[in-house]
């Protein structure tokens, strides 16, 4: 089964308005999944990570219901059928 990356509405225009992207499970980690996203949608990836490859401060990424901040960060593993959700953190001004 593929790994699914669910996009927030703000990022969907950078993936031809897709709400979700399907990736092969071989991406293995969140980092691998983001790399695969960036190969196809580099503008989208720029919005999620900095030029140093770190997840932006006010972006949260979940694998299933677990935030990768409280797991293994970008090294958090993904397996068949997992859903990676990218969301804007609850913050603003």
């Amino acid at each position, binding site marked *: 089964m593929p790994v699914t990356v669910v996009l927030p509405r703000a990022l969907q225009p950078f993936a031809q308005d897709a709400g979700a992207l399907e990736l092969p499970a071989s991406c293995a980690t969140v980092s691998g999944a983001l790399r695969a996203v960036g190969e196809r949608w*580099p503008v989208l990836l720029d*919005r*999620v990570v*900095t030029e*140093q490859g770190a997840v*932006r401060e*006010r972006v949260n990424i979940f694998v299933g219901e677990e935030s990768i901040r409280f797991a293994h960060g970008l090294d958090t593993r993904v397996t068949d059928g997992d859903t990676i959700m990218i969301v*804007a953190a609850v913050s603003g001004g």
Partner: protein
Amino acid sequence: MDGDVHLLVGTVKGAFILRSDASRTTWSVDGPHFPGESVYALAYDERGGRRRTLAATRSFHWGSTVRTSDDHGATWSGPERQSIRFPEESGESLVQIWQIKPGTAADPDRLWAGVEPAALFQSRDGGESWDVVRGLLDHPQRKQWQPGGGGLCLHTIVTDPTNPDRLLVAISTAGVYRSDDGGASWSARNSGVRAQYLPNKYPEFGQCVHKVVQHPARPERLFLQNHWGLYRSGDWGDSWTDVANGVPSDFGFAMQMHPHDPDTVFIVPLQSDEFRCTPEAKLRVYRTRDAGASWQPLSNGLPQENAYETVIRDALTADTHDPAGIYFGTRSGKVYASADGGESWTSVVDALPAVTCVKAAVVGGMHA
């Protein structure tokens, strides 16, 4: 049409374009562009046959980038890939773009950008792509620079119309740095500028310079609004002289050169670094017409009671008409305009989001 004035207004929630004809009596309001994103830098560039508006946008979540429009804001580029990027080995990541500065008329494809964390980028293709200026990024004093309240930002860029190799920048809080070799090497130029908040009040660097302005007819003479202190230099920043003569406070952020008179400068003093509101609850622009020997308040048409306003470093500007239009925006979302060099003022809009920058463009004229 040619002669129209476009006021490019950046706010914490997007950009607005206020338009008027050359009379500058009535204004239309277009926006918000980039709603929800903060816009701290705007520029208009007519060199090289372009009529390009540039906007530095920052999403609270999704990062910062430069957007361009070649049709006065009807359509905008991208956002494409983040065009201002720190090199990987620097370990730095772009936080915000604080300044976009078109280069000299003789070099029409070059632009400069000042960013946070403090660094200078240059474009050689009209703003399409950008490269970091290594000489400043690798400066040995850089690791000792400290962030001010707005972050460690390079917010001011001054070019020399007579010497393409000379460039001056201001950084909060590092002070003024100047290059005489096109950005390859830089040296601090803060002699005489006070650092009120340090044990050593006159260090080589570490000053919190808020803005530096210059008139192209006298490029060697600079005026500086400091975090406490108003200064003038007659030698490209080699030395600075206090010119806070007759102002209610020498604290403030904004400073603007008159477009036609190299002795005339505008500021908006603020009461203190703790309060940061207009003194005596009066909204007054101060103007010197004798290069800082004296300053006079300009208040005709501005509120003089219960006016606790703040005008930040890029929110005061001038157009290039004669008489000059002077404009400023406030943190409370008001924009004021003067079509007579500051003698009288009118309110253009009064309920925008907090204003971060105001730039005036005369269509078919010179960028301001």
